[in-house]
């Protein structure tokens, strides 16, 4: 009897929060969930920041700086006042550091001390950067502006986008819509500016019109020009959803791996790629020729690490962001909570995987090279 009541309660809660509220009450009030603009490059928040030409602030850069600040603040707070008997924050940091050092020790052995600082820094930074995008407001609160051509937008209601229909993907703005919106936004004084823009873009539209692939280009034209299509550019976006950061980290990891290798073995480190000793002894050991070719192939797999590092992180985090957008868009309550839990896990795992791979590759680069002949 009690089980039946609990089941009925769960069903009632599910119906209310997954049915009634998102599909009836919220559209009724005009606050249904809008589908955000999904863009691969970081979206520009400020162009020419502080008047400096070409200094563009994207929202992924803001996310990165925020993660830096949070990490530095935590680290400062934890180490400012260190005691023999640690407080809570210091204790937390000690647990994390200890676990990471244990991991480094078990993987890299005596070399752990050299790799550990870089690996732990990257882990902590990525962990915080990945979790910052899960905070409320990240990827959703931002500058509202007229939707550019080809971007879906919604009418504006004060400071929020008005969405009065559940699962409404918005209206795709055309060039004319953007101009009309720009003109109504900036009023009379900027009318000339808008007109100038219209002239410039008018030509572009004229050129693009005889496009044979568009089956019915008039279809979009017949709906008329709207001047109220807005889109939001969020202030903060997950740092790792920008390829610039992930490929940069991949490059850093690659350089670090080579550095560790060279520091451990000197110039002879590169004989694992261009295997001259094996080639010199080819008369004695004919299989040395094979080793030489394998060494050349190693170069490719070494360079591929950059791409592998960069795209793994980017793909996971960006796909996670899109998943969050789409789940919140489809069912705005209850269901996204599960996705958030998944993303919490993915953020941790990806930070761990990045640090762990850096550790393993560095350990391989540093580990015994002198007994190379004995391996075969």
């Amino acid at each position: 009897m009690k089980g039946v009541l609990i089941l009925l309660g769960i069903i009632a809660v599910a119906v209310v929060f997954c049915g009634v509220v998102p599909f009836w009450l919220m559209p009724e009030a005009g606050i249904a969930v809008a589908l955000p603009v999904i863009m691969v490059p970081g979206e520009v928040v400020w162009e020419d920041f502080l008047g400096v030409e070409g200094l563009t602030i994207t929202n992924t850069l803001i996310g990165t700086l925020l993660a830096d600040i949070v990490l530095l603040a935590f680290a400062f707070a934890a180490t400012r006042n260190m005691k023999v008997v640690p407080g809570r924050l210091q204790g937390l940091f000690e647990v994390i550091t200890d676990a990471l050092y244990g991991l480094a020790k078990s993987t890299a052995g005596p070399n752990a001390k050299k790799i550990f600082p870089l690996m732990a820094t990257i882990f902590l930074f990525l962990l915080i950067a990945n979790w910052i995008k899960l905070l409320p407001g990240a990827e959703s609160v931002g500058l509202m502006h007229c939707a550019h051509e080809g971007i879906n937008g919604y009418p504006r209601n004060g400071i929020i986008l008005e969405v009065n229909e559940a699962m409404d993907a918005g209206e795709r703005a055309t060039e004319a819509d953007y101009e009309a919106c720009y003109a109504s936004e900036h009023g009379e004084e900027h009318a000339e500016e808008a007109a100038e823009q219209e002239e410039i873009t008018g030509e572009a539209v004229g050129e693009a019109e005889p496009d044979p692939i568009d089956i019915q280009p008039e279809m979009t034209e017949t709906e008329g020009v709207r001047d109220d299509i807005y889109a939001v550019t969020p202030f903060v976006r997950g740092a790792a959803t920008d390829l610039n950061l992930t490929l940069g980290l991949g490059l850093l990891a690659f350089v670090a791996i080579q550095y560790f290798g060279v520091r451990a073995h000197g110039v002879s480190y590169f004989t694992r790629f261009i295997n001259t000793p094996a080639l010199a002894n080819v008369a004695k050991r004919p299989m040395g020729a094979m080793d030489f070719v394998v060494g050349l192939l190693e170069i490719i797999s070494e360079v591929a690490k950059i791409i592998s590092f960069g795209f793994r992180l980017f793909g996971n985090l960006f796909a996670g962001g899109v998943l969050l957008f789409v789940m919140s868009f489809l069912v705005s309550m209850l269901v996204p909570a599960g996705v958030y839990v998944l993303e919490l896990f993915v953020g941790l795992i990806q930070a761990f995987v990045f640090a762990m791979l850096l550790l393993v590759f560095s350990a391989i680069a540093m580990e015994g090279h002198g007994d190379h002949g004995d391996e075969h």
Partner: protein
Amino acid sequence: MEITGNLVDAAKAIGAGLAMIGVIGPGIGIGVLVQGALSAIGRNPDASGQITTNMILGIAFAEAVAIYALVVSLIILFVL
């Protein structure tokens, strides 16, 4: 039925969908990996910590291939 709309958009959607076929391999691979790790933990529960770490590393390698497919389809959808 008359087809309306932009043919390029349709082709992009189809191409992005086709690109994601590449996820089949990593899916099978991750399944095999976890199966092996679980049976290893079943045989030797004491080593579960190290097995889990190595399993996650292996999953990361297998998953990278899936992520390449995902990136291709994302590029088709949002960049091209």
